[in-house]
């Protein structure tokens, strides 16, 4: 093949992307060595002060630990539920075209606006949930002012919003599976469960990994639901890095320090995702078809 053709395909996109992000990225790196804040703008040089401050920032590291729980848990739930409803919508239920549309709808809603709706559902005095509990004679639950229920509320909002993403990708994957392995399984007389465990699930592994990875990336930026529902409270019980970085960068206008936190987050996220990617690759290979 002639040289030059491969470049024609890759380079326009790559160059455009790099052109858009190169300055912001370099700027972000540079600004972490400055003291850009509310009363000092511009790129002075203060050495590694922001970095050493970050090392001591208990609130930041706490939020990162919390993120592990929140992102892995919500993505895991989304995956399991998304897979389940994808299987139902794949075959074997009546009116599946109706359900497919219905189950896609949450993804179409704007997360920042839905978060407000969720707040009106979970808010403790006039919210829908406590209203329902009241009707059936139960005591109101402190959905947003107790650590456990607050984390639950955020998980619910995230699962609602993003399970359809998993659902769509997994359903599309299921629909494109070749028919032969299933016929072979049927001839062997395998049960539904065995067919799923031995045929469907392994064949869906590559798609599953892709979907989980991209969801993990987005779920790690979890912000709208946290900010709108609890503002990270009660205390710091639901504060995620994205919410904390938002507060530092935008509310306190600590551009330099916020960038330090974000850059660290970026590096840690890339490392974590690379490791997860490797683990997934190893897990899925021997079982592959």
């Amino acid at each position, binding site marked *: 093949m002639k040289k030059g053709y491969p470049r024609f395909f890759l380079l326009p996109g790559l160059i455009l992307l790099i052109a858009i992000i190169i300055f912001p990225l370099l700027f972000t790196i540079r600004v972490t060595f400055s003291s850009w804040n509310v009363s000092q703008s511009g790129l002075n040089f203060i050495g590694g002060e922001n970095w050493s401050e970050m090392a001591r920032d208990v609130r930041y590291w706490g939020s990162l630990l919390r993120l592990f729980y929140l992102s892995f848990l919500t993505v895991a739930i989304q995956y399991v539920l998304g897979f389940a*409803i994808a299987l139902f919508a794949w075959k074997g239920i009546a009116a599946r075209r109706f359900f497919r*549309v219905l189950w896609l709808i949450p993804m179409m809603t704007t997360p920042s606006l839905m978060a407000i709706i969720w707040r009106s559902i979970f808010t403790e005095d006039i919210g829908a949930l406590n209203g329902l509990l009241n009707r059936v004679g139960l005591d109101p639950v402190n959905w947003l002012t107790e650590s456990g229920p607050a984390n639950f509320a955020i998980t619910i909002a995230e699962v609602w919003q993003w399970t359809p993403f998993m659902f769509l990708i997994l359903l599309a994957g299921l629909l494109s599976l070749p028919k032969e392995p299933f016929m072979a399984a049927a001839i062997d007389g395998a049960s539904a469960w065995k067919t799923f465990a031995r045929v469907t699930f392994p064949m869906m592994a590559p798609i599953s990994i*892709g979907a989980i990875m991209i969801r993990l990336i987005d779920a790690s930026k979890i912000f709208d639901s946290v900010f709108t529902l609890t503002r990270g409270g009660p205390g710091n019980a639901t504060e995620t890095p994205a919410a904390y*970085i938002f507060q530092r960068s935008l509310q306190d206008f600590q551009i330099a320090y916020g960038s330090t936190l974000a850059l660290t987050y970026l590096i840690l996220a890339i490392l974590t995702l690379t490791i997860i990617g490797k683990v997934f690759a190893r897990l899925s290979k021997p079982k592959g078809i």
Partner: protein
Amino acid sequence: MYKVLKATFITIWSLFVLFPIMWAITTSFKPEAAVVNGATFIPWLEFQPVLTGWKAILPGPDSLTNLLTPTLNSFIVTAGATAISVAFGSLAAYGLSRFTYGWKKYSNADIIFFFVSQRIMPPVVLAIPFFLVLKQLRLLDTHLGLILVLTSGLMPIVVWLMVDFFNALPREIDEMAMLEGCNPIQAFFRTILPLSKPGLTVAGMFCVIFGWNDIFFALTLTATKVLTLPVAVIALNGTVTPYWILAASTVFSIIPLVGLAFVIERFLSRGSLGGAVR
């Protein structure tokens, strides 16, 4: 037994999906008193439906805001960013699927990861640098400026989806075309592209959804001229939260995208979507 379980599960899940939407729709027809004095659910029985919330966001004498111009802006920005992302992203994805690029020890997989990694950064820290870039280019508060910035978040999705899609298309197709005398570019446009419509559609739909729903960049990089729909809605959230108006605008802003759900379902039913993710 299994059937009962399945039916229960489907019912519960559907109710769960519907509940916030129904809540938003009913809230949008509530008068203030039916919101701030405790939860109400059943129209006519527990509250008298009124159009206060809707009148506030639609043109008319009681209009608080004009959501139609922002809708147009959202549409332009989303369409622009989607078009650029799909065009450039699918070219790159095809390249990554068919050729081996190498630079030192970095392989195709690393390049793909590089694309995808653009989604990792929390957008909030990019506010100032993007602001500076657009200011320098005189693109603040313009459609083009916002489109370019959104593209950086959307193209990764296209690349990620389309690499898998092109991998699933047999190589014999392009090889056949090249045997007939096409160069790789001609082969791509004449044979691969027509086969890729479902994939491109799904990738484009993800772009539309994520682009339409962006709020942070729109808020940061625009002012009055390119006000997008989510930003206009959030601006209704004053000191006292008018849930009835916000609910109406939320419902309003998802209507165009719910249309998309039908389109996606169409593709699913024809079975032509499958290749998009394989």
